[in-house]
Protein backbone atom coordinates (compact mmCIF):
# COMPACT_ATOMS: atom_id res chain seq x y z
CA UNK A 1 0.00 0.00 0.00
CA UNK A 2 1.19 3.46 -0.81
CA UNK A 3 2.21 5.59 2.14
CA UNK A 4 -0.43 7.93 3.41
CA UNK A 5 -3.29 5.81 2.16
CA UNK A 6 -6.09 5.41 4.67
CA UNK A 7 -5.29 2.22 6.53
CA UNK A 8 -7.96 0.05 8.08
CA UNK A 9 -7.18 -1.81 11.25
CA UNK A 10 -6.81 -5.48 10.51
CA UNK A 11 -7.00 -7.93 13.38
CA UNK A 12 -9.44 -10.76 14.08
CA UNK A 13 -12.81 -9.29 14.93
CA UNK A 14 -11.96 -5.87 13.49
CA UNK A 15 -14.64 -6.29 10.85
CA UNK A 16 -17.31 -7.03 13.44
CA UNK A 17 -16.24 -4.05 15.55
CA UNK A 18 -16.34 -1.80 12.51
CA UNK A 19 -19.85 -2.98 11.63
CA UNK A 20 -21.00 -2.44 15.19
CA UNK A 21 -19.54 1.05 15.19
CA UNK A 22 -21.29 1.93 11.96
CA UNK A 23 -24.56 0.50 13.25
CA UNK A 24 -24.33 2.67 16.36
CA UNK A 25 -23.44 5.67 14.20
CA UNK A 26 -26.59 5.12 12.17
CA UNK A 27 -28.59 4.79 15.38
CA UNK A 28 -27.25 8.14 16.61
CA UNK A 29 -27.83 9.69 13.22
CA UNK A 30 -31.44 8.55 13.33
CA UNK A 31 -31.90 9.95 16.85
CA UNK A 32 -30.53 13.33 15.78
CA UNK A 33 -32.51 13.38 12.55
CA UNK A 34 -35.78 12.73 14.39
CA UNK A 35 -35.67 16.34 15.52
CA UNK A 36 -34.71 17.78 12.17
CA UNK A 37 -37.46 19.51 10.21
CA UNK A 38 -39.36 18.97 7.98
CA UNK A 39 -40.81 15.82 9.47
CA UNK A 40 -41.95 13.30 6.87
CA UNK A 41 -45.50 12.88 8.17
CA UNK A 42 -46.87 11.17 5.10
CA UNK A 43 -44.10 8.61 4.90
CA UNK A 44 -44.47 8.00 8.63
CA UNK A 45 -48.20 7.29 8.41
CA UNK A 46 -47.75 5.08 5.37
CA UNK A 47 -45.06 3.09 7.12
CA UNK A 48 -47.12 2.75 10.32
CA UNK A 49 -49.98 1.44 8.29
CA UNK A 50 -47.74 -0.91 6.37
CA UNK A 51 -45.94 -2.34 9.39
CA UNK A 52 -49.18 -2.67 11.33
CA UNK A 53 -50.84 -4.45 8.42
CA UNK A 54 -48.10 -7.05 8.14
CA UNK A 55 -47.81 -7.64 11.90
CA UNK A 56 -51.25 -7.38 13.55
CA UNK A 57 -52.68 -10.71 12.45
CA UNK A 58 -49.59 -12.84 13.14
CA UNK A 59 -49.13 -11.11 16.49
CA UNK A 60 -52.67 -11.85 17.59
CA UNK A 61 -52.34 -15.41 16.39
CA UNK A 62 -49.07 -15.89 18.26
CA UNK A 63 -50.30 -14.11 21.41
CA UNK A 64 -53.19 -16.48 22.14
CA UNK A 65 -51.20 -19.75 22.26
CA UNK A 66 -48.34 -17.93 23.98
CA UNK A 67 -50.62 -16.73 26.77
CA UNK A 68 -52.08 -20.21 26.97
CA UNK A 69 -48.68 -21.90 27.21
CA UNK A 70 -47.55 -19.63 30.01
CA UNK A 71 -50.83 -20.07 31.85
CA UNK A 72 -50.67 -23.84 31.55
CA UNK A 73 -47.03 -24.15 32.49
CA UNK A 74 -47.19 -21.74 35.39
CA UNK A 75 -50.54 -23.15 36.42
CA UNK A 76 -49.21 -26.67 36.91
CA UNK A 77 -46.00 -25.42 38.52
CA UNK A 78 -47.80 -23.19 40.98
CA UNK A 79 -50.27 -25.92 41.90
CA UNK A 80 -47.30 -28.16 42.68
CA UNK A 81 -45.88 -25.42 44.90
CA UNK A 82 -49.24 -25.04 46.58
CA UNK A 83 -49.81 -21.41 45.69
CA UNK A 84 -52.89 -21.76 43.49
CA UNK A 85 -54.24 -18.39 44.52
CA UNK A 86 -51.34 -16.64 42.74
CA UNK A 87 -51.76 -18.24 39.31
CA UNK A 88 -53.38 -15.14 37.89
CA UNK A 89 -50.71 -12.75 39.05
CA UNK A 90 -47.86 -14.94 37.92
CA UNK A 91 -49.12 -15.44 34.41
CA UNK A 92 -50.04 -11.80 34.01
CA UNK A 93 -46.63 -10.64 35.15
CA UNK A 94 -44.90 -13.13 32.88
CA UNK A 95 -47.01 -12.06 29.93
CA UNK A 96 -46.83 -8.33 30.40
CA UNK A 97 -43.20 -8.04 31.36
CA UNK A 98 -41.58 -10.70 29.24
CA UNK A 99 -43.79 -12.36 26.70
CA UNK A 100 -45.56 -9.34 25.26
CA UNK A 101 -42.50 -7.19 24.43
CA UNK A 102 -40.62 -10.16 23.04
CA UNK A 103 -43.45 -11.48 20.92
CA UNK A 104 -44.01 -7.98 19.65
CA UNK A 105 -40.36 -7.44 18.92
CA UNK A 106 -39.95 -10.75 17.14
CA UNK A 107 -42.88 -9.94 14.91
CA UNK A 108 -41.87 -6.33 14.31
CA UNK A 109 -38.37 -7.55 13.45
CA UNK A 110 -39.42 -10.63 11.53
CA UNK A 111 -42.31 -9.18 9.55
CA UNK A 112 -41.78 -5.39 9.68
CA UNK A 113 -37.97 -5.28 9.81
CA UNK A 114 -37.48 -7.73 7.00
CA UNK A 115 -39.84 -5.71 4.81
CA UNK A 116 -38.00 -2.48 5.68
CA UNK A 117 -34.64 -4.08 4.97
CA UNK A 118 -35.76 -5.49 1.62
CA UNK A 119 -37.27 -2.14 0.62
CA UNK A 120 -34.23 -0.07 1.56
CA UNK A 121 -31.89 -2.70 0.14
CA UNK A 122 -33.50 -2.71 -3.28
CA UNK A 123 -33.47 1.08 -3.29
CA UNK A 124 -29.76 0.99 -2.48
CA UNK A 125 -28.84 -1.30 -5.33
CA UNK A 126 -30.98 0.71 -7.73
CA UNK A 127 -28.90 3.72 -6.59
CA UNK A 128 -32.03 5.51 -5.41
CA UNK A 129 -30.40 6.20 -2.05
CA UNK A 130 -27.34 7.69 -3.75
CA UNK A 131 -29.54 9.71 -6.04
CA UNK A 132 -31.45 11.09 -3.08
CA UNK A 133 -28.26 12.04 -1.25
CA UNK A 134 -26.98 13.76 -4.39
CA UNK A 135 -30.20 15.71 -4.71
CA UNK A 136 -29.28 17.17 -1.33
CA UNK A 137 -31.88 15.20 0.64
CA UNK A 138 -30.64 13.07 3.52
CA UNK A 139 -31.93 9.51 3.05
CA UNK A 140 -31.66 8.95 6.80
CA UNK A 141 -34.02 11.79 7.54
CA UNK A 142 -36.27 11.16 4.60
CA UNK A 143 -36.58 7.38 4.59
CA UNK A 144 -35.06 5.82 7.69
CA UNK A 145 -36.45 8.06 10.44
CA UNK A 146 -40.12 7.55 9.48
CA UNK A 147 -39.56 3.80 9.28
CA UNK A 148 -37.82 3.55 12.65
CA UNK A 149 -40.47 5.72 14.31
CA UNK A 150 -43.20 3.65 12.70
CA UNK A 151 -41.59 0.45 13.95
CA UNK A 152 -41.44 1.95 17.45
CA UNK A 153 -45.04 3.12 17.45
CA UNK A 154 -46.36 -0.13 16.06
CA UNK A 155 -44.28 -2.09 18.58
CA UNK A 156 -45.82 -0.13 21.45
CA UNK A 157 -49.35 -0.60 20.14
CA UNK A 158 -48.82 -4.27 19.42
CA UNK A 159 -47.40 -4.70 22.87
CA UNK A 160 -50.69 -3.46 24.27
CA UNK A 161 -52.53 -5.84 21.99
CA UNK A 162 -50.40 -8.82 23.01
CA UNK A 163 -50.79 -7.97 26.68
CA UNK A 164 -54.57 -7.85 26.41
CA UNK A 165 -54.87 -10.93 24.24
CA UNK A 166 -52.33 -12.81 26.36
CA UNK A 167 -54.01 -11.96 29.65
CA UNK A 168 -57.40 -12.94 28.27
CA UNK A 169 -55.94 -16.18 26.95
CA UNK A 170 -54.38 -16.83 30.36
CA UNK A 171 -57.68 -16.12 32.09
CA UNK A 172 -59.51 -18.44 29.76
CA UNK A 173 -57.09 -21.29 30.28
CA UNK A 174 -56.76 -20.87 34.03
CA UNK A 175 -60.39 -20.30 34.83
CA UNK A 176 -62.21 -22.31 32.20
CA UNK A 177 -59.86 -25.17 31.47
CA UNK A 178 -57.98 -25.61 34.75
CA UNK A 179 -60.87 -24.89 36.99
CA UNK A 180 -59.39 -21.89 38.83
CA UNK A 181 -61.72 -19.37 40.42
CA UNK A 182 -62.19 -16.03 38.63
CA UNK A 183 -62.10 -14.19 41.92
CA UNK A 184 -58.69 -15.55 42.93
CA UNK A 185 -57.29 -14.85 39.48
CA UNK A 186 -58.33 -11.21 39.57
CA UNK A 187 -57.44 -10.50 43.18
CA UNK A 188 -53.96 -12.02 42.96
CA UNK A 189 -53.56 -9.96 39.82
CA UNK A 190 -54.01 -6.73 41.70
CA UNK A 191 -52.05 -8.00 44.68
CA UNK A 192 -48.78 -8.56 42.81
CA UNK A 193 -48.93 -6.60 39.58
CA UNK A 194 -48.31 -2.84 39.59
CA UNK A 195 -48.44 -0.05 37.08
CA UNK A 196 -44.66 0.18 36.50
CA UNK A 197 -44.84 -3.35 35.12
CA UNK A 198 -46.90 -2.03 32.26
CA UNK A 199 -44.61 0.98 31.78
CA UNK A 200 -41.51 -1.14 31.56
CA UNK A 201 -43.26 -3.44 29.17
CA UNK A 202 -44.08 -0.53 26.87
CA UNK A 203 -40.60 0.90 27.26
CA UNK A 204 -39.11 -2.41 26.21
CA UNK A 205 -41.36 -2.52 23.18
CA UNK A 206 -40.27 1.01 22.27
CA UNK A 207 -36.59 0.12 22.51
CA UNK A 208 -37.08 -3.13 20.60
CA UNK A 209 -38.93 -1.29 17.85
CA UNK A 210 -36.05 1.16 17.57
CA UNK A 211 -33.45 -1.60 17.39
CA UNK A 212 -35.44 -3.57 14.86
CA UNK A 213 -35.87 -0.49 12.66
CA UNK A 214 -32.25 0.65 12.85
CA UNK A 215 -30.75 -2.78 12.22
CA UNK A 216 -33.08 -3.38 9.28
CA UNK A 217 -32.23 0.01 7.81
CA UNK A 218 -28.51 -0.49 8.37
CA UNK A 219 -28.41 -3.83 6.62
CA UNK A 220 -30.57 -2.43 3.86
CA UNK A 221 -28.21 0.51 3.31
CA UNK A 222 -25.17 -1.76 3.03
CA UNK A 223 -26.02 -4.85 1.02
CA UNK A 224 -22.97 -6.72 -0.25
CA UNK A 225 -22.87 -6.97 -4.03
CA UNK A 226 -26.12 -6.67 -5.90
CA UNK A 227 -29.56 -8.27 -5.67
CA UNK A 228 -28.34 -11.45 -3.96
CA UNK A 229 -26.84 -9.23 -1.27
CA UNK A 230 -30.30 -7.86 -0.48
CA UNK A 231 -31.59 -11.34 0.27
CA UNK A 232 -28.63 -12.00 2.54
CA UNK A 233 -29.03 -8.60 4.17
CA UNK A 234 -32.68 -9.31 5.07
CA UNK A 235 -31.68 -12.62 6.52
CA UNK A 236 -28.87 -11.09 8.57
CA UNK A 237 -31.04 -8.20 9.70
CA UNK A 238 -33.57 -10.55 11.25
CA UNK A 239 -30.93 -12.72 12.92
CA UNK A 240 -28.93 -9.77 14.27
CA UNK A 241 -32.09 -8.12 15.56
CA UNK A 242 -33.15 -11.27 17.39
CA UNK A 243 -29.76 -11.62 19.06
CA UNK A 244 -29.71 -7.97 20.07
CA UNK A 245 -33.27 -8.08 21.34
CA UNK A 246 -32.73 -10.98 23.69
CA UNK A 247 -29.59 -9.39 25.02
CA UNK A 248 -31.20 -5.98 25.53
CA UNK A 249 -34.20 -7.66 27.10
CA UNK A 250 -31.90 -9.33 29.61
CA UNK A 251 -30.24 -6.02 30.47
CA UNK A 252 -33.51 -4.12 30.78
CA UNK A 253 -35.10 -6.83 32.93
CA UNK A 254 -32.10 -6.95 35.26
CA UNK A 255 -32.09 -3.18 35.65
CA UNK A 256 -35.84 -3.03 36.22
CA UNK A 257 -35.86 -5.75 38.84
CA UNK A 258 -33.11 -3.92 40.70
CA UNK A 259 -34.58 -0.46 40.34
CA UNK A 260 -38.28 -1.05 41.02
CA UNK A 261 -39.09 -3.00 44.17
CA UNK A 262 -41.61 -5.77 43.62
CA UNK A 263 -45.04 -5.09 45.04
CA UNK A 264 -45.78 -6.59 48.36
CA UNK A 265 -42.17 -7.22 49.29
Amino acid at each position, binding site marked *: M*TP*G*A*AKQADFPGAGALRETGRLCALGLDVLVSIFRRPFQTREFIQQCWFIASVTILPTALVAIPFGAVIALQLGTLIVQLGAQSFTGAASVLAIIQQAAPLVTALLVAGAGGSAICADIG*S*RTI*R*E*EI*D*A*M*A*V*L*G*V*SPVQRLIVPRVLAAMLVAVLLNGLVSVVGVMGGYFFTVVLQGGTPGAYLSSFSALAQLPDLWVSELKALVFGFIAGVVAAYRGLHPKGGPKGVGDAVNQAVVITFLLLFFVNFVLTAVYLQAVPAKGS
Partner: protein
Amino acid sequence: MGAEVVIEGLTKSFGNQAIWRDVTLSLPPGEVSVMLGPSGTGKSVFLKSMIGLLKPDRGSCVVNGVDIVTCSEAKLYETRKLFGVLFQDGALFGSMDLYDNVAFPLREHTKKSETEIKRIVLEKLELTGLQGAEHKLPGEISGGMRKRAGLARALVLDPEIILCDEPDSGLDPVRTAYLSQLLIDLNAQIDATILIVTHNINLARTVPDNLGMLFRKELVMFGPREVLLTSDEPVVEQFLNGRRIGPIGMSEEKDAAQMAAEQAHVDAGHHDGSGAEDLRGVVPQIEPTPGLPERQGARRRKDRVMQILHTLPEAAREGIIDSLTDAERARYNVRSHRRPPAASFRGSLHETQEIARLPRQDWRGASGR
Protein backbone atom coordinates in the same frame (compact mmCIF):
# COMPACT_ATOMS: atom_id res chain seq x y z
CA MET B 1 -21.15 31.05 -14.57
CA GLY B 2 -20.80 27.42 -13.52
CA ALA B 3 -18.60 26.46 -10.63
CA GLU B 4 -15.04 25.26 -11.07
CA VAL B 5 -14.12 21.81 -9.82
CA VAL B 6 -10.50 21.31 -8.83
CA ILE B 7 -9.41 17.75 -8.18
CA GLU B 8 -5.98 17.03 -6.79
CA GLY B 9 -4.21 13.76 -6.16
CA LEU B 10 -7.44 11.81 -5.79
CA THR B 11 -6.82 8.12 -5.07
CA LYS B 12 -9.39 5.41 -4.54
CA SER B 13 -9.20 1.73 -3.73
CA PHE B 14 -11.66 -0.90 -2.56
CA GLY B 15 -9.79 -3.06 -0.08
CA ASN B 16 -6.69 -4.19 -1.92
CA GLN B 17 -8.03 -3.31 -5.34
CA ALA B 18 -6.69 0.05 -6.43
CA ILE B 19 -9.15 1.75 -8.76
CA TRP B 20 -7.15 4.83 -9.79
CA ARG B 21 -4.49 6.93 -8.15
CA ASP B 22 -3.33 10.51 -8.18
CA VAL B 23 -5.99 11.85 -10.48
CA THR B 24 -5.42 15.57 -10.83
CA LEU B 25 -7.54 17.70 -13.09
CA SER B 26 -9.74 20.73 -13.02
CA LEU B 27 -13.01 21.24 -14.77
CA PRO B 28 -12.90 24.83 -15.99
CA PRO B 29 -16.07 26.77 -15.14
CA GLY B 30 -18.75 26.65 -17.79
CA GLU B 31 -16.92 24.22 -20.06
CA VAL B 32 -17.97 20.80 -21.25
CA SER B 33 -15.57 17.95 -20.47
CA VAL B 34 -15.71 14.30 -21.40
CA MET B 35 -14.02 11.43 -19.59
CA LEU B 36 -13.32 8.33 -21.65
CA GLY B 37 -12.05 4.99 -20.49
CA PRO B 38 -12.53 1.28 -21.05
CA SER B 39 -15.31 -0.40 -19.11
CA GLY B 40 -14.39 -1.06 -15.51
CA THR B 41 -11.63 1.55 -15.15
CA GLY B 42 -13.56 3.31 -12.45
CA LYS B 43 -15.28 6.15 -14.26
CA SER B 44 -18.49 5.73 -12.31
CA VAL B 45 -16.46 5.45 -9.13
CA PHE B 46 -14.75 8.71 -10.09
CA LEU B 47 -18.07 10.53 -10.47
CA LYS B 48 -19.31 9.16 -7.17
CA SER B 49 -16.13 10.27 -5.44
CA MET B 50 -16.57 13.75 -6.85
CA ILE B 51 -19.95 14.12 -5.15
CA GLY B 52 -18.94 12.48 -1.90
CA LEU B 53 -20.88 9.24 -2.28
CA LEU B 54 -17.64 7.30 -2.06
CA LYS B 55 -14.78 8.31 0.16
CA PRO B 56 -11.44 8.50 -1.67
CA ASP B 57 -8.34 7.33 0.20
CA ARG B 58 -6.71 10.70 -0.23
CA GLY B 59 -6.71 13.80 -2.38
CA SER B 60 -9.14 16.66 -2.57
CA CYS B 61 -12.04 17.75 -4.72
CA VAL B 62 -12.79 21.42 -4.24
CA VAL B 63 -16.02 23.02 -5.40
CA ASN B 64 -16.76 26.65 -4.52
CA GLY B 65 -14.08 26.52 -1.84
CA VAL B 66 -15.53 23.39 -0.21
CA ASP B 67 -13.44 20.22 -0.21
CA ILE B 68 -15.99 17.47 -0.83
CA VAL B 69 -13.64 14.81 0.54
CA THR B 70 -13.16 16.26 4.01
CA CYS B 71 -16.05 18.65 4.63
CA SER B 72 -18.83 18.08 7.17
CA GLU B 73 -22.02 16.26 6.32
CA ALA B 74 -24.10 19.44 6.46
CA LYS B 75 -21.69 21.27 4.15
CA LEU B 76 -21.70 18.29 1.79
CA TYR B 77 -25.48 18.31 1.47
CA GLU B 78 -25.38 22.05 0.93
CA THR B 79 -22.75 21.81 -1.81
CA ARG B 80 -24.54 18.96 -3.54
CA LYS B 81 -27.39 21.29 -4.38
CA LEU B 82 -25.05 22.81 -6.98
CA PHE B 83 -24.85 19.47 -8.76
CA GLY B 84 -27.17 17.78 -11.18
CA VAL B 85 -26.18 14.16 -11.53
CA LEU B 86 -27.35 11.61 -14.06
CA PHE B 87 -26.60 8.10 -12.82
CA GLN B 88 -25.65 5.26 -15.12
CA ASP B 89 -29.04 3.58 -14.70
CA GLY B 90 -31.09 6.73 -14.24
CA ALA B 91 -31.63 5.96 -10.51
CA LEU B 92 -35.26 7.09 -10.58
CA PHE B 93 -37.37 6.59 -7.46
CA GLY B 94 -39.24 3.39 -8.20
CA SER B 95 -42.26 4.27 -6.14
CA MET B 96 -42.93 7.60 -7.86
CA ASP B 97 -44.08 8.26 -11.41
CA LEU B 98 -41.92 10.29 -13.76
CA TYR B 99 -43.68 13.54 -12.92
CA ASP B 100 -43.09 13.16 -9.19
CA ASN B 101 -39.53 12.04 -9.81
CA VAL B 102 -38.73 15.19 -11.73
CA ALA B 103 -40.69 17.35 -9.30
CA PHE B 104 -38.91 15.85 -6.29
CA PRO B 105 -35.94 18.29 -6.12
CA LEU B 106 -38.25 21.26 -6.63
CA ARG B 107 -40.54 20.18 -3.82
CA GLU B 108 -37.61 19.51 -1.52
CA HIS B 109 -35.55 22.59 -2.11
CA THR B 110 -37.82 25.36 -3.35
CA LYS B 111 -40.99 26.99 -2.15
CA LYS B 112 -42.54 27.05 -5.61
CA SER B 113 -46.27 26.59 -5.99
CA GLU B 114 -47.63 23.41 -7.58
CA THR B 115 -48.61 25.24 -10.76
CA GLU B 116 -45.10 26.59 -11.14
CA ILE B 117 -43.64 23.15 -10.44
CA LYS B 118 -45.93 21.70 -13.06
CA ARG B 119 -44.75 24.19 -15.65
CA ILE B 120 -41.07 23.47 -14.97
CA VAL B 121 -41.50 19.71 -14.84
CA LEU B 122 -43.45 19.54 -18.07
CA GLU B 123 -40.88 21.77 -19.73
CA LYS B 124 -38.01 19.49 -18.69
CA LEU B 125 -39.93 16.37 -19.70
CA GLU B 126 -40.59 17.89 -23.09
CA LEU B 127 -36.93 18.84 -23.41
CA THR B 128 -36.02 15.19 -22.99
CA GLY B 129 -38.83 13.95 -25.24
CA LEU B 130 -40.94 12.39 -22.52
CA GLN B 131 -44.17 14.33 -22.85
CA GLY B 132 -47.13 11.98 -22.40
CA ALA B 133 -45.16 9.55 -20.23
CA GLU B 134 -45.28 11.64 -17.06
CA HIS B 135 -47.64 9.33 -15.22
CA LYS B 136 -45.74 6.13 -15.92
CA LEU B 137 -43.71 4.43 -13.21
CA PRO B 138 -39.99 3.89 -13.85
CA GLY B 139 -40.67 0.15 -14.09
CA GLU B 140 -42.99 0.73 -17.02
CA ILE B 141 -40.67 2.56 -19.40
CA SER B 142 -37.66 1.60 -21.50
CA GLY B 143 -34.06 1.93 -20.35
CA GLY B 144 -33.41 4.86 -22.65
CA MET B 145 -36.50 6.64 -21.35
CA ARG B 146 -35.35 6.11 -17.77
CA LYS B 147 -32.05 7.65 -18.73
CA ARG B 148 -33.75 10.69 -20.21
CA ALA B 149 -36.04 11.04 -17.21
CA GLY B 150 -32.97 10.89 -14.98
CA LEU B 151 -31.49 13.73 -17.01
CA ALA B 152 -34.69 15.75 -16.71
CA ARG B 153 -34.53 15.35 -12.94
CA ALA B 154 -30.86 16.32 -12.86
CA LEU B 155 -31.63 19.51 -14.77
CA VAL B 156 -34.66 20.69 -12.90
CA LEU B 157 -32.84 22.89 -10.38
CA ASP B 158 -30.68 24.56 -13.05
CA PRO B 159 -27.48 23.12 -11.55
CA GLU B 160 -24.12 24.81 -11.84
CA ILE B 161 -22.35 21.52 -12.37
CA ILE B 162 -23.82 18.66 -14.38
CA LEU B 163 -22.33 15.18 -14.16
CA CYS B 164 -23.58 12.57 -16.62
CA ASP B 165 -22.64 8.92 -16.34
CA GLU B 166 -22.94 7.49 -19.85
CA PRO B 167 -25.88 9.58 -20.99
CA ASP B 168 -25.81 7.78 -24.32
CA SER B 169 -25.82 4.14 -23.20
CA GLY B 170 -29.15 2.57 -24.00
CA LEU B 171 -29.99 5.33 -26.47
CA ASP B 172 -30.11 4.98 -30.25
CA PRO B 173 -27.74 7.06 -32.42
CA VAL B 174 -30.42 9.59 -33.29
CA ARG B 175 -31.39 10.20 -29.68
CA THR B 176 -27.72 10.38 -28.78
CA ALA B 177 -27.27 13.12 -31.37
CA TYR B 178 -30.24 15.00 -29.90
CA LEU B 179 -28.83 14.51 -26.45
CA SER B 180 -25.43 15.88 -27.48
CA GLN B 181 -27.17 18.91 -28.89
CA LEU B 182 -29.27 19.20 -25.72
CA LEU B 183 -26.20 19.25 -23.51
CA ILE B 184 -24.50 21.90 -25.62
CA ASP B 185 -27.69 24.00 -25.69
CA LEU B 186 -27.96 23.70 -21.92
CA ASN B 187 -24.41 24.81 -21.54
CA ALA B 188 -25.13 27.82 -23.73
CA GLN B 189 -28.25 28.70 -21.73
CA ILE B 190 -27.16 28.24 -18.13
CA ASP B 191 -23.38 28.19 -18.54
CA ALA B 192 -23.08 25.10 -16.36
CA THR B 193 -19.88 23.13 -15.96
CA ILE B 194 -20.51 19.73 -17.50
CA LEU B 195 -18.64 16.45 -17.14
CA ILE B 196 -19.78 13.54 -19.26
CA VAL B 197 -18.51 9.99 -18.83
CA THR B 198 -18.98 7.96 -21.98
CA HIS B 199 -17.76 5.28 -24.37
CA ASN B 200 -19.33 7.02 -27.31
CA ILE B 201 -16.55 8.16 -29.62
CA ASN B 202 -18.76 10.35 -31.72
CA LEU B 203 -19.96 12.23 -28.68
CA ALA B 204 -16.39 12.52 -27.41
CA ARG B 205 -15.25 13.96 -30.75
CA THR B 206 -17.98 16.50 -31.26
CA VAL B 207 -19.28 17.67 -27.88
CA PRO B 208 -16.58 18.53 -25.35
CA ASP B 209 -14.16 21.37 -24.85
CA ASN B 210 -11.88 19.13 -22.81
CA LEU B 211 -11.22 15.44 -23.07
CA GLY B 212 -9.69 13.03 -20.60
CA MET B 213 -9.06 9.33 -20.44
CA LEU B 214 -8.73 6.91 -17.54
CA PHE B 215 -6.74 3.76 -18.12
CA ARG B 216 -4.58 1.41 -16.08
CA LYS B 217 -5.54 3.02 -12.80
CA GLU B 218 -4.43 6.42 -13.98
CA LEU B 219 -5.58 9.51 -15.74
CA VAL B 220 -3.78 9.06 -19.07
CA MET B 221 -4.40 12.65 -20.06
CA PHE B 222 -6.81 15.48 -19.55
CA GLY B 223 -6.79 18.68 -21.53
CA PRO B 224 -8.20 20.52 -24.53
CA ARG B 225 -10.00 18.10 -26.82
CA GLU B 226 -7.53 18.62 -29.63
CA VAL B 227 -4.73 17.13 -27.53
CA LEU B 228 -6.42 13.80 -27.01
CA LEU B 229 -7.98 13.68 -30.47
CA THR B 230 -4.59 14.05 -32.15
CA SER B 231 -2.63 12.01 -29.63
CA ASP B 232 -0.19 9.31 -30.72
CA GLU B 233 -0.59 7.47 -27.43
CA PRO B 234 -1.38 3.81 -28.31
CA VAL B 235 -4.26 3.48 -25.82
CA VAL B 236 -5.91 6.60 -27.14
CA GLU B 237 -5.56 5.51 -30.72
CA GLN B 238 -6.89 2.05 -29.95
CA PHE B 239 -9.82 3.38 -27.96
CA LEU B 240 -10.85 6.05 -30.44
CA ASN B 241 -10.75 3.58 -33.31
CA GLY B 242 -12.24 0.67 -31.37
CA ARG B 243 -9.72 -1.90 -32.49
CA ARG B 244 -8.41 -4.95 -30.71
CA ILE B 245 -4.78 -4.21 -31.50
CA GLY B 246 -3.33 -2.14 -28.69
CA PRO B 247 -2.78 -2.17 -24.96
CA ILE B 248 -6.45 -2.49 -23.96
CA GLY B 249 -7.67 -6.06 -23.66
CA MET B 250 -10.95 -7.70 -22.78
CA SER B 251 -9.87 -7.73 -19.16
CA GLU B 252 -8.29 -4.42 -18.50
CA GLU B 253 -4.68 -5.10 -19.47
CA LYS B 254 -3.00 -7.42 -21.93
CA ASP B 255 0.31 -9.17 -21.64
CA ALA B 256 2.97 -9.08 -24.32
CA ALA B 257 2.27 -12.61 -25.51
CA GLN B 258 -1.36 -11.86 -26.26
CA MET B 259 -0.45 -8.63 -28.00
CA ALA B 260 2.03 -10.50 -30.20
CA ALA B 261 -0.51 -13.23 -31.00
CA GLU B 262 -3.13 -10.67 -31.99
CA GLN B 263 -0.64 -8.75 -34.11
CA ALA B 264 0.23 -12.02 -35.87
CA HIS B 265 -3.47 -12.62 -36.62
CA VAL B 266 -3.79 -9.16 -38.11
CA ASP B 267 -0.66 -9.62 -40.17
CA ALA B 268 -2.17 -12.83 -41.48
CA GLY B 269 -5.16 -10.84 -42.72
CA HIS B 270 -7.60 -11.25 -39.81
CA HIS B 271 -9.76 -8.14 -39.32
CA ASP B 272 -8.93 -6.27 -36.12
CA GLY B 273 -12.42 -4.93 -35.56
CA SER B 274 -11.88 -1.29 -36.37
CA GLY B 275 -13.49 0.81 -39.07
CA ALA B 276 -11.64 1.61 -42.28
CA GLU B 277 -10.43 5.06 -41.34
CA ASP B 278 -8.53 6.55 -38.47
CA LEU B 279 -11.03 8.41 -36.30
CA ARG B 280 -8.40 10.57 -34.70
CA GLY B 281 -8.15 14.17 -35.73
CA VAL B 282 -10.00 17.29 -34.80
CA VAL B 283 -13.56 17.52 -36.08
CA PRO B 284 -15.77 20.60 -35.71
CA GLN B 285 -17.50 20.94 -32.36
CA ILE B 286 -21.30 21.07 -32.09
CA GLU B 287 -22.65 24.61 -31.91
CA PRO B 288 -25.67 25.69 -29.87
CA THR B 289 -28.94 25.68 -31.79
CA PRO B 290 -29.27 28.94 -33.78
CA GLY B 291 -31.11 31.54 -31.74
CA LEU B 292 -29.51 30.56 -28.46
CA PRO B 293 -26.82 32.73 -26.88
CA GLU B 294 -23.18 32.08 -27.64
CA ARG B 295 -21.47 29.66 -25.25
CA GLN B 296 -19.54 31.75 -22.76
CA GLY B 297 -17.55 28.68 -21.77
CA ALA B 298 -16.33 28.23 -25.33
CA ARG B 299 -15.13 31.84 -25.44
CA ARG B 300 -13.30 31.58 -22.17
CA ARG B 301 -11.80 28.30 -23.28
CA LYS B 302 -10.49 29.80 -26.49
CA ASP B 303 -8.60 32.43 -24.55
CA ARG B 304 -7.33 29.89 -22.09
CA VAL B 305 -6.18 27.46 -24.75
CA MET B 306 -4.47 30.17 -26.80
CA GLN B 307 -2.48 31.11 -23.72
CA ILE B 308 -1.13 27.61 -23.27
CA LEU B 309 -0.89 26.92 -27.00
CA HIS B 310 2.90 26.85 -27.07
CA THR B 311 2.92 24.06 -24.46
CA LEU B 312 0.69 21.75 -26.49
CA PRO B 313 1.96 19.04 -28.86
CA GLU B 314 2.46 20.00 -32.50
CA ALA B 315 -0.54 18.05 -33.85
CA ALA B 316 -2.91 19.51 -31.27
CA ARG B 317 -1.62 23.00 -31.99
CA GLU B 318 -2.35 22.56 -35.69
CA GLY B 319 -5.80 21.23 -34.90
CA ILE B 320 -6.59 24.24 -32.74
CA ILE B 321 -5.32 26.77 -35.22
CA ASP B 322 -7.20 25.11 -38.05
CA SER B 323 -10.43 25.34 -36.11
CA LEU B 324 -10.15 29.11 -35.66
CA THR B 325 -11.73 31.57 -38.04
CA ASP B 326 -9.51 33.96 -39.95
CA ALA B 327 -10.51 36.82 -37.68
CA GLU B 328 -9.58 34.85 -34.62
CA ARG B 329 -6.29 33.82 -36.14
CA ALA B 330 -5.54 37.47 -36.68
CA ARG B 331 -6.61 38.36 -33.16
CA TYR B 332 -4.47 35.70 -31.52
CA ASN B 333 -1.72 36.32 -34.07
CA VAL B 334 -1.22 32.72 -35.11
CA ARG B 335 -0.82 31.12 -38.52
CA SER B 336 -1.36 27.60 -39.74
CA HIS B 337 1.71 25.86 -41.10
CA ARG B 338 -0.42 23.40 -42.96
CA ARG B 339 -2.25 23.65 -46.22
CA PRO B 340 -5.92 24.55 -45.88
CA PRO B 341 -8.02 21.52 -44.97
CA ALA B 342 -9.58 19.43 -47.72
CA ALA B 343 -13.00 20.90 -47.12
CA SER B 344 -12.04 24.14 -48.83
CA PHE B 345 -11.81 22.34 -52.18
CA ARG B 346 -15.56 22.02 -52.17
CA GLY B 347 -16.66 24.89 -54.36
CA SER B 348 -18.68 26.12 -57.24
CA LEU B 349 -18.72 24.30 -60.52
CA HIS B 350 -15.94 25.99 -62.46
CA GLU B 351 -13.40 25.17 -59.74
CA THR B 352 -14.55 21.58 -59.67
CA GLN B 353 -14.06 21.33 -63.42
CA GLU B 354 -10.50 22.44 -63.11
CA ILE B 355 -9.78 20.02 -60.34
CA ALA B 356 -11.45 17.30 -62.31
CA ARG B 357 -9.31 18.01 -65.34
CA LEU B 358 -6.07 18.01 -63.42
CA PRO B 359 -6.25 15.13 -60.94
CA ARG B 360 -3.39 16.42 -58.85
CA GLN B 361 -0.59 14.26 -60.14
CA ASP B 362 1.96 15.76 -57.78
CA TRP B 363 0.07 14.55 -54.73
CA ARG B 364 0.05 10.94 -55.91
CA GLY B 365 3.76 11.17 -56.58
CA ALA B 366 4.50 12.83 -53.30
CA SER B 367 2.81 10.19 -51.22
CA GLY B 368 4.98 7.55 -52.84
CA ARG B 369 2.24 5.15 -54.00
